[in-house]
């Protein structure tokens, strides 16, 4: 579903990604872990077609980036630590707007279904600016799945959430993944990543330093694996 070969990303003279190789099968939930400045967000922005690779090959959902960016975007849902929502519109108006941007013909039933999924059906007529950070993040997930994408990218979705909101977000993320979608999530929260993901990739100094599946980690724990990967 995602194939990345020898990806390089430079900003001026600064090299962020140094020949990164990465691939994800359909239905996999990959947690992309790494210290600050490792290049996680830059990598996700390239997968999301928001940034162009300097060198290398990137293929998402069967389409090459950046040449087939529009086709990729139609199959992609992105959630970042910012909700990408308009505070002066209601939850329903935000959903309607994004549904029209994705060309959804009859958005009404889909909006109801998505708001129900993220537990905000009873707040559909409320302005987003009256929502808590946790509610905004859940609505952001609703926004990202409105067009039923095949691939989901989550960039630090837990940033700024309290314990209750994080647990609620866990539930939503599980239900998104349970649909058979391919998910890539960056996070600093190793416990959450361990709980949700089926594979763990450690990004360090612009390359994937180590990777392991949940099965491979059974006799170890993620923190030890993570620390070892960074030392090596």
């Amino acid at each position, binding site marked *: 579903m995602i194939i990345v070969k020898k990806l390089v990303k430079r900003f001026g003279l600064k090299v962020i990604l140094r020949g990164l190789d990465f691939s994800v099968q359909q239905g996999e939930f990959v947690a992309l872990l790494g210290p600050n400045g490792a290049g996680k967000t830059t990598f996700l*922005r390239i997968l*999301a*077609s*928001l*940034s*162009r690779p300097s060198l290398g090959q990137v293929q998402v959902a069967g389409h090459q980036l950046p040449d087939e960016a*529009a*086709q990729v*975007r*139609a199959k*992609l849902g*992105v959630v*970042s630590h*910012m*909700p*990408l*929502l*308009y*505070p*002066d*519109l209601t939850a329903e*108006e935000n959903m309607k*707007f*994004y549904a*029209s*941007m*994705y*060309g*959804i*013909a*009859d958005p009404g*039933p*889909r909006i109801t*279904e*998505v708001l129900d*999924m993220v*537990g905000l059906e009873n707040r559909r007529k409320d*302005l987003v600016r009256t929502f808590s950070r946790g509610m905004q993040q859940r609505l952001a997930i609703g*926004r990202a*799945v409105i*067009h*039923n994408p095949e691939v989901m990218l989550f960039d630090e979705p837990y940033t700024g959430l309290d314990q209750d909101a994080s647990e609620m977000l866990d*539930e*939503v993320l*599980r*239900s*998104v993944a349970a*649909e058979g979608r391919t998910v890539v999530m960056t996070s600093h929260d190793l416990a959450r990543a361990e709980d949700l993901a089926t594979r763990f990739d450690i990004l360090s100094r612009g390359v994937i330093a180590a990777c392991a599946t949940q099965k491979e980690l059974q006799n170890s724990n993620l923190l030890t694996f993570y620390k070892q990967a960074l030392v090596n």
Partner: protein
Amino acid sequence: MVTNKQPVTRNASPSLLKATFAIVRKDLAAELRSFELISAMLVFSLLVIIIFNFALELDVKVRQSVTAGVLWTTFAFAGTLGLNRSMSTEKDRGCMDGLLLAPVDRSAIYFGKAISNLAFMLIVEAIVLPVYSILYNVNLFRLDLIGVILLGSIGYTAVGTLLSAMSVQTRTREVLLPILLFPVAIPVLLASVKASGSLLAGAEFSEILTPLNILIVYDIVFISVAFMLFDHVVEE
């Protein structure tokens, strides 16, 4: 929690026109609720014309001769406020990424934002004109003058929307936009002042053809340039 009970019927991708008007509708709906942008532009505009009214204690004849300059100075500065605010609301909450992630031609984002910006500018102008008429005792309700104001505003927002999309990505966006915009918008501002001034001085329509042509050409050129460049401007 189960998704996808309903099949999602999706067109290949929304047309340029549909996506453009979705953005315009969204901007107008958000602004009608908050009035953040229009109120800032309006208060600024009214303050400027009141300050000029007291600063230029002139007779009626001289007032008529400065009207075009005062009006376009007011519109230009108020317009800059609106352009900055309109694009920074998209950027600050990451909504620009939301727009860029949609499978639409990115020109739709430009046209949507430009039409919204033009609508906000025209609303402010529609309120400023009668206030100016009363304060300065000058009749501004003339179709030909309104036509010139419309053409000037289209040119100003066409180039302003493109440049605000560039400047909003910098830390010094509030300062950078006017620095970038005013030199580029000089032809449209000068032509607008010239055409408006001549009309208010009682000139015939044929006498304002040169500035009018400049305005029309400027509008076409900058809309075309923005159409071609916007994709590159918003790309990281």
